[in-house]
């Protein structure tokens, strides 16, 4: 396995953020757990702009997962408003949300969530199937994206023939293949050893340098340190929102 060319030696560059992609305004989320009502989010407002590298942190129960689901358009708020690229997501139907996720959001999961019986290439092609792309165009695009994450020679391998780091690279390629507006990574290194985890963070760094917008949800300070901006949640509220060089 050869990691992609490293840029860690170079001084950390912060790209100038562009137009606003995500605009969250006073969002709350209530869950009914039996007789109890859980206030997962109590009024969160957050703006994310293009070319930002953002980490969302917080202990378990802080509402960080709920916020991530909300940002990923997997869930809709109980109250408050959420605009994605200027469109009001809060009132969308299931299928409209599915289309937004398909085109605008690339998901990277802690457990990779690759389809076990499909090859790396087929896994990366999947979002393009849902986008309605023909098979030749799909294969070409998926192949290029896999090569971009350093897996050009592993396309025909199934997940169980790949190492953990390679699996997460496939997942990242899958997230990127449809040129989404944001890359949303949930504990991307949580199932990897620290060395492989560091390689994945290097890859994210490169993708950021290439102009992608990245949101990482994590509880590890070491991981969050890679981001240029750290948002900390506690008890369903934003505790701090700090930009760092």
């Amino acid at each position, binding site marked *: 396995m050869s990691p992609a060319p490293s840029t860690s030696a170079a001084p950390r560059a912060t790209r100038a953020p562009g137009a606003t992609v995500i605009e969250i305004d006073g969002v709350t989320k209530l869950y009914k757990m039996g007789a109890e009502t859980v206030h997962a989010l109590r009024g969160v407002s957050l703006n994310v702009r293009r070319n930002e590298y953002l980490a969302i942190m917080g202990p378990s129960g802080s509402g960080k997962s709920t916020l991530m689901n909300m940002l990923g358009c997997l869930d809709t708020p109980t109250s408050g408003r959420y605009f994605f690229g200027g469109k009001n997501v809060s009132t969308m139907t299931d299928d409209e949300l599915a289309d937004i*996720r398909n*085109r605008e959001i690339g998901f990277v999961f802690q457990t990779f969530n690759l*389809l076990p019986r499909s090859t790396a290439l087929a896994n990366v092609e*999947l*979002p393009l*199937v849902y986008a309605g792309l023909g098979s030749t165009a799909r294969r070409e695009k998926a192949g290029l994206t896999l090569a971009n994450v350093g897996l050009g020679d592993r396309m025909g391998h199934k997940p169980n023939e790949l190492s953990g780091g390679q699996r997460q690279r496939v997942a990242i390629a899958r997230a990127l293949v449809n040129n989404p507006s944001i890359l949303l990574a949930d504990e991307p290194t949580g199932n990897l050893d620290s060395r492989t985890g560091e390689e994945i963070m290097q890859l994210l760094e490169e993708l950021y340098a290439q102009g992608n917008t990245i949101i990482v949800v994590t509880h590890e300070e070491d991981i969050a340190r890679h981001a240029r901006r750290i948002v900390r949640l506690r008890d369903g509220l934003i505790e701090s929102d700090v930009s760092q060089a």
Partner: protein
Amino acid sequence: MNRLLYEFTESVRIAWTQIRANKMRSVLTALGVIIGIVAVTLMGTAIRGIDTGFQNSLAMLGEDVLYIEKWPWGPVEDWWNYNNRPRIRPEYAERINRVIAGTPNSLLQIAVPVLTRGCSVKVGDAKVSGVFTIGTLAEYARLISADYKEGRLFNEAEAGSGRQVVALGHDVAEALFPGRSAVGETVMVNGQPFEVVGVFAKQGEFLGLFSFDNQAVLPLTAFQKYFAGRQDASIRVKVTDKLRLAEAREELTGAMRRVRGQLPGERDNFSVNEQAAFKAQLDPVKQGIAMAGLFITGLSLFVGAIGIMNITFVSVKERTKEIGTRKALGARRRTILLQFLIEAVSICLIGGVVGLLLTYGLVAGVGAVFPSFPIVFSFSLVFVGLAVSVATGIVSGFAPAWGAARLDPVVALRYE
């Protein structure tokens, strides 16, 4: 539109991967469908075979023959009115023939009297009991479309002179003269000697009730002399055009009323029967058998469908996390629905194809062992069998697939 097509092909690919990955499970589930399809299609062939048998039997009665008899074919409620009708005499045939001869452009060709009873036929120690014995005239040959294995029916001269000659059905001749010619031999019909002049070719059974091959046809004069009391005859009348049967029937009724000397306004004191009456009788029975048969075999297909539904529920449960992932990547509800429906339909189709092959083999086997058993495998059956398989897959896969399509992606992703 394209997107739907790609989703479809992707779903087919996934379905095959899943079926191959869970071979044992898929085979067992398909087995339920196989049994159901075999049962239903076998019943279908049997029903079709019975139908063909009915039609063949009815054709034996002759589509262009009307029967004047005392009783109608079919049930009557006021039987006492019929019971008091005067006897149908064999001589009526000749008088009807005179009326026909006197009618220009008659739709009727010829009337022939027929008397019947069961007799035993013996040669030496060999004996056949319950032979359907017919006493008639030489013109009988014009009514029936039978071929002869050897010889012929007796002629007018033989019949008129009261000679004791007989034409035997195929099976009777075969039983009495195994492997050799019967013509010229003498047989004892209820103790009276008759010379065999012909043997009919094999004809088959009528509705499985009696066999045309188990008959003996002999001259009316001899029949009346030895076997007949005052029994009712059946006057068989051949029509010129079977497409104008209704008109012919009208004409025959008029002719018979003249023969009987019935007054206008008097009710007919005889019945004119035709094979259509039989058909009207048999159709409800046939449909009843078909409905009951299909219902019972349909139950086995239903059990197969429950198996499919069950396995689809299991498949959805197992792959909840995958459903969540797919939804996160942009799969719409219909995508997920399609995926699991195609999986269910694929298993059903495999079951259907295997089931049809088995049915084909069974039908061919039964046909080889019992050539007279009326079952026919047809290509419409293939079409119906596959359509039923697909429908089974859709019906039984829908509930679990719909459940999967409606899963909340957040919940599905968290599912372990």
